[in-house]
């Protein structure tokens, strides 16, 4: 609805205004504006207003019911010196790396396998995608009993092969690995499907040409598949970064029965769980809003980094790199010649 409604009025108003005498432009366009208004009204109420209101709240101290008290930048000030907040950033980063790196690599491998699969293609695609549409609460409950210290499947398995138990849900690293595993399991299929779409968009001619030139499968993968998939990889990297920075449900469900939703030692407390804990458990809505905006800045930063690392202006960068390479080669030749001259 949003997409079609945005384009429609522009076209009609321009043609209408050129056909007749100018005035009353707005009156004429009214039906069109009215037609597209539901989206914008709903967005203003449920999208724009909460965003703006949260800025307002973040300058206040507010328990949700009583009077809001203006505190200026005090919430942000507290945030900067809040050990727990910095810890949540660390936790979130670790969980994000632990989940995103294996997830994207695995997704690429799976996408390749799906691309080359000859039998039961649809079945496999659905099978890999299903975790993504399964309720994350249900998934977490299941993983909770897999990783459980006392009766977990994983510990039972480790015992049976003679390796000692691991205190998954009480040790700092165990918690992070458990959460990262849940995230990976849930999103790997989604990313694989996106990669698959990217793979299918690469023309077979390129591969054929490579084959004629005698490229090995490995060379084909690194020199054709990966470079041509770059926009797709950028997309998945950006979305997983945004998703990774917002991890919340997993630790909420794993440790949801107490006031301390980050688990022992706050080892699973992510930025968003801290936001939730501050605003909705401790009823410090001003502080919760401040955390929200700090998270926003972080996400912007990381998106820029991603953009520069993986995306960026391709042509410009390639030409610059090529130019540098040529320069270097000339310099090397010159040096060689000089050396020969000396001799």
């Amino acid at each position, binding site marked *: 609805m949003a997409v079609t409604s945005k384009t429609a009025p522009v076209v009609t108003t321009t043609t209408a205004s050129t056909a007749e005498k100018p005035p009353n432009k707005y009156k004429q366009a009214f039906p069109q504006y009215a037609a597209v208004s539901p989206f914008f009204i709903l967005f203003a109420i449920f999208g724009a207003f909460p965003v703006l209101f949260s800025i307002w709240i973040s300058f206040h101290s507010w328990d949700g*019911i009583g009077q809001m008290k203006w505190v200026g930048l005090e919430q942000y000030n507290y945030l900067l010196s809040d050990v727990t907040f910095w810890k949540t950033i660390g936790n979130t980063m670790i969980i994000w790396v632990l989940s995103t790196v294996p997830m994207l690599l695995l997704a690429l491998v799976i996408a390749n396998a799906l691309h080359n699969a000859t039998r039961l293609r649809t079945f496999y695609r659905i099978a890999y995608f299903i975790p993504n549409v399964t309720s994350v609460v249900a998934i977490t409950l299941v993983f909770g009993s897999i990783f459980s210290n006392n009766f977990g499947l994983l510990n039972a398995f480790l015992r049976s092969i003679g390796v000692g138990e691991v205190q998954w849900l009480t040790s700092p690293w165990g918690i992070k690995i458990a959460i990262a595993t849940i995230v990976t399991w849930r999103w790997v299929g989604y990313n694989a499907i996106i990669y698959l779409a990217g793979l299918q968009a690469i023309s077979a001619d390129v591969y054929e040409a490579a084959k004629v030139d005698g490229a090995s499968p490995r060379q084909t993968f690194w020199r054709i598949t990966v470079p041509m998939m770059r926009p797709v990889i950028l997309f998945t990297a950006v979305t997983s970064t945004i998703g990774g920075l917002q991890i919340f449900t997993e630790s909420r469900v794993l440790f949801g029965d107490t006031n*301390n939703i980050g688990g022992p030692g706050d080892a699973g407390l992510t930025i968003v769980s801290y936001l939730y804990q501050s605003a909705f458990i401790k009823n410090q809505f001003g502080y919760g809003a401040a955390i929200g905006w700090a998270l926003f800045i972080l996400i912007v930063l990381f998106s820029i980094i991603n953009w520069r690392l993986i995306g960026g202006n391709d042509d410009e960068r390639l030409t610059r790199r090529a130019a540098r390479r040529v320069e270097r080669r000339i310099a090397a030749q010159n040096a060689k010649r000089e050396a020969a001259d000396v001799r």
Partner: protein
Amino acid sequence: MTLSRRHFLAAGSAIAAAGLTGCGSRSSLGGSHELSMWTWVGSVNDDLIGQAEKAIPGYDGMKLAMTRIGSNYKTKVLTALAGKSLVPDIVAINDDVATYFPNADQFYDLNELGAKDLEKDFLPWKWKWGVTPEGKMMAYPMDTGPTALFYRTDIFQKAGVDIDPAAVAGVAPDWDAYIALGKKLKQAVPGSAITDNITSIYGYRMAQQSKRYMTPDGQYLGDQDHVRQAFDLAVRVVKEGLSANAQNSSDKNAVVTNGKLVAFMGAVWWAQLGPKNAAPKTKGLWRVTAAPGGAGNKGGSFLAITKYCKNPKAAFAFISWLESAKNQAQAFLDPVLFPSTPASYTDPKLSAPDPFFGGQKIVDVFAESAKKYPGAYFSPYDTIIDTPISAELVNIEASGKDPDQAWADAQRQVERELTRAGAI
């Protein structure tokens, strides 16, 4: 009417308009003959609610409209109050009732509705918890959570301990003796634990004391000896290897199911949440006796009437009926809510022998605890203070943090939070 696009749009905009205007014109949730009430699952007796849903006793024109909220109860109540419209007439409040005191103006003073005359029917300390420091009766008592010692007779027998409740209470009158008993049990049955985790010991020890984290006039007590001693006691139980290190709910259930937890100092509601739910096969093996260290209370809830209520008299008539001694006795049968009205303790519904506890009349033990409990002042900041201390205790048990360091870190965090909240 056929469903044409025009009809659909017309109906849609009519609904939207009704929804928008509705927000402004009504402040209390439900129809004009309905008293709306919110509570969480398992906090009321369903038969009694069913009766009130037909007619409020004494107010034939009024009906109750009950909503049972599955999760994030408090968040939803606060959101409704913050919205200042469509607020339920009656809300249930948990044992953190004091955190609502700064916003007591959102609720009726129940004394003005006639609560004063009923005070004598209730446990004095429970009644006091619903009254703000300014003397406003904000919340009406529902159930309580007197504490006692639960134990497994089969394990005690293996360790050569007399399993008679009176005898067990005699063996472990205080915490030192209880820890010694725990060591003996562990020797007889390796792996035995006397608590699910470190915070249970701390929490239940705090629940036995006559003071907690603040004085009524706002002085901080959380760094004083009675807190430090409870803290050290919890650390000691862990260092002696008597804790099962179960930090989340599924693990807490697991240690009951697999029999690791052979004794537990818990509140009355643990009978259901713990052994009855998690280890039904142990039926007949459990007993209850007076807890080491004395009587205590943990948990229990309240009812409050919001200032948006359309008929506060009827609402008060309903809650005083629901929490009468007779009806509280019925709520003990289902869903095991322990009455705050001492008259209920002799009601035959409560004093029936419980086969799960080998035919013991467990009500006697808990009634004794409820009557003897000294009561303590809960401040609006107790949750803020308790959270860092409990979190640091978990660090000690789960990752072996140095107790002195943990105590210092907890105190620093509490001070930061209290300063921000404007409490000190």
